[in-house]
């Protein structure tokens, strides 16, 4: 019961946050919200299904680029770009994951990292003449309904927060479903999962697909928040950060991943004066966390079992 109370309190706090913050803080809050969505979606692949995906920025970037290209180049309203920004990353996730999901551990890590580098170079080389090359794309608009433009920082915060809530709801639903459990089983022992009848290949690709969909949503929010997309925002270094956030925070652990995101994206904003040393400190923190808490800051507790079968 107590846990539930804390959860609701935090949700309400996140909704009321703009009331008592200035716009700089709302900007930081929006950054946190957007990167939380990506980290949580990374957690589906890495934390839950246990696949070492170090190319997650690809799907985030595809979502952002889809919105940017459709809105900025072709004038499609932001809200109408959302379905495309979800479906396109999903299609690519399926196509890219299908040939490599059977790879184990580090091999998968290296393959996904490779995809990310190819992706970045494709963006820089202005593939099909639509990605804007090294500049990226500028001048993405804001969402509007019935001609009213929601351009204040607070409204973009809510736009992103809506996606975060959606993500949290899906992750919650996933956890208590056959699909979500299958991902955990595959993570624990892929072969044993196969022999009790789980189509591991299907669920591995599914994990990539659903997390690409959520990353795509985060990409939409990114494009709106920064009105800009550019290749370096989605390079493999970003993927390394998402990867790190999940492991440092705690795999499969929603509070853990959120804490990880907070440490990586909010704490440096507070200590901006020490900006140059921030990654140095973060590196030390990463090593220390892994030594002192190898399962992450807030490790997951398994055992979500319905009450009716507890005795």
């Amino acid at each position, binding site marked *: 019961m107590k846990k539930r109370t804390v959860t609701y309190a935090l949700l309400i706090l996140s909704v009321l946050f703009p009331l008592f913050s200035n*716009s700089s803080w709302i900007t930081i809050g929006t950054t946190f919200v957007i990167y939380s969505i990506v980290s949580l979606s990374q957690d589906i692949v890495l934390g839950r299904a246990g696949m070492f995906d170090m190319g997650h920025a690809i799907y985030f970037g595809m979502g952002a680029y889809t919105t940017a290209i459709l809105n900025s180049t072709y004038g499609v309203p932001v809200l109408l770009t959302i379905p495309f920004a979800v479906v396109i990353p999903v299609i690519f996730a399926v196509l890219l994951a299908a040939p490599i999901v059977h790879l184990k551990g580090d091999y998968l890590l290296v393959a996904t990292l490779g995809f990310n580098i190819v992706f970045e170079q494709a963006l820089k*080389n202005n593939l099909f003449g639509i990605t804007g090359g090294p*500049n990226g794309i500028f001048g993405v608009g804001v969402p509007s309904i019935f001609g009213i433009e929601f351009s*204040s*920082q*607070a409204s973009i915060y*809510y736009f992103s927060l809506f996606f975060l809530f959606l993500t949290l709801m899906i992750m919650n639903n996933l956890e208590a479903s056959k699909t979500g459990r299958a991902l955990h089983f595959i993570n624990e022992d892929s072969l044993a999962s196969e022999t009790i009848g789980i189509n591991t290949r299907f669920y591995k690709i599914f994990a990539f697909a659903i997390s690409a969909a959520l990353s795509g949503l985060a990409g939409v929010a990114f494009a709106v928040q920064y009105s800009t997309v550019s290749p370096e925002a989605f390079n493999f270094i970003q993927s390394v950060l998402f990867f790190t956030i999940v492991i440092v925070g705690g795999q499969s652990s929603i509070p853990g991943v959120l804490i990880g995101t907070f440490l990586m994206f909010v704490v440096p904003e507070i200590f901006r004066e020490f*900006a140059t040393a921030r990654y140095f400190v973060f590196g030390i923190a990463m090593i220390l966390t892994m030594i002192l808490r190898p399962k992450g800051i807030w490790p997951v507790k398994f055992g979500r079992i319905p009450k009716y079968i507890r005795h």
Partner: protein
Amino acid sequence: MKKLWGLFLVLAVAISLSSEAMASSYILIGVQAPITGKYANEGQGIAQAVKLIVSQQNAEGGILGKKIKVIVCDDEGTAVQAAICARDLVNKGVIAVIGSYTSTSTEAAEATYYRANVLQTSDGTSDRLTKHGYWTFFRNSFPNSAEAAFTAQYLVNKKHYKRIVVLSDHSSYSNGLSNAVAKAIKKAGGTVIYRGRITSGAQNFTPVLTKIKSMNPDVIYFGGYYTDGGLIRAQQVELRIKADFVGGDSVDNPDFLKLAGKSAAGTYLINVPTPSILPYPLAKNFLKAYKARYHMMPPSIWTLLNTDGLRAILFAIKETGTTNTVKLAKYLHNLKDFPGITGPVTFLKSGERTGSVYMTYEVQENGSKKIVYKEK
């Protein structure tokens, strides 16, 4: 569940519509520049110059009876950080922004300033900066197309090169400049036999140079940064490629000479004048004041160009007696021959500054530079 979502939507819309309003007893001027990262010294130069001018103005009692306050935002030279800065500066209520240093960060922020009616002046050289039709933007330097036209004139008509290779990296500045140069060369009747792109920082350029060697060029033009330019020149000489080497404005840096070593001698560099050779008394005074306050020279001409952008805006406020940016922009669009540190400042309707002064230097055996060709 549905009720919760509904509640969320109602609250979200309500809170975002109760938008914030701010009033300040200061006139706020923003600086958006790379304070950290690869271009840190350039960014810091811009911030220091702006603070110097503003403190001089405040010492004279400010402007329109108000003091001026400078807010600096570090865009790290990246597009994403630039967009964050833009939003942040707008939210803090600045009326004008100086910066950024790179074209990419400038362009990434342009739309945000335009939507918020905030003036922006930048040294970015990408031609696209003035092509969006934003009335808020003023370029205080000269566009790539101006440098490209001069370069083509030099390569084709002065040096009569027949087989020209144009190289760049992938950055928006370098790619843009080199595309413009290639285009201008064709327009001037020259032939670009190869237009190549290298990966900045890759260090090993021998594969692409070997390919170039097999094409027998007269000249290799590189429109990128000195970090790569120095190595390209060194490796060119090592591979015994006999072509001349011509570099764009960002190759012109003391470290280019160090990286290219002995091979630097005989290369040609195209740039606007360095601060120390500016002939104007205003320039001499400014450099003196800058040196007195910061105990160093401004890092480059770009600092002074941005300073002129700021001076023009302050001048417009004084002349019009308002901080209404629409009126200020209207005034600036008609500004003619305002005496600047870097020469007379004249803006076109597009926000473009006219009257460029490019020159070609030749690097000598002893590492010094000699002016060999000048724009008429």
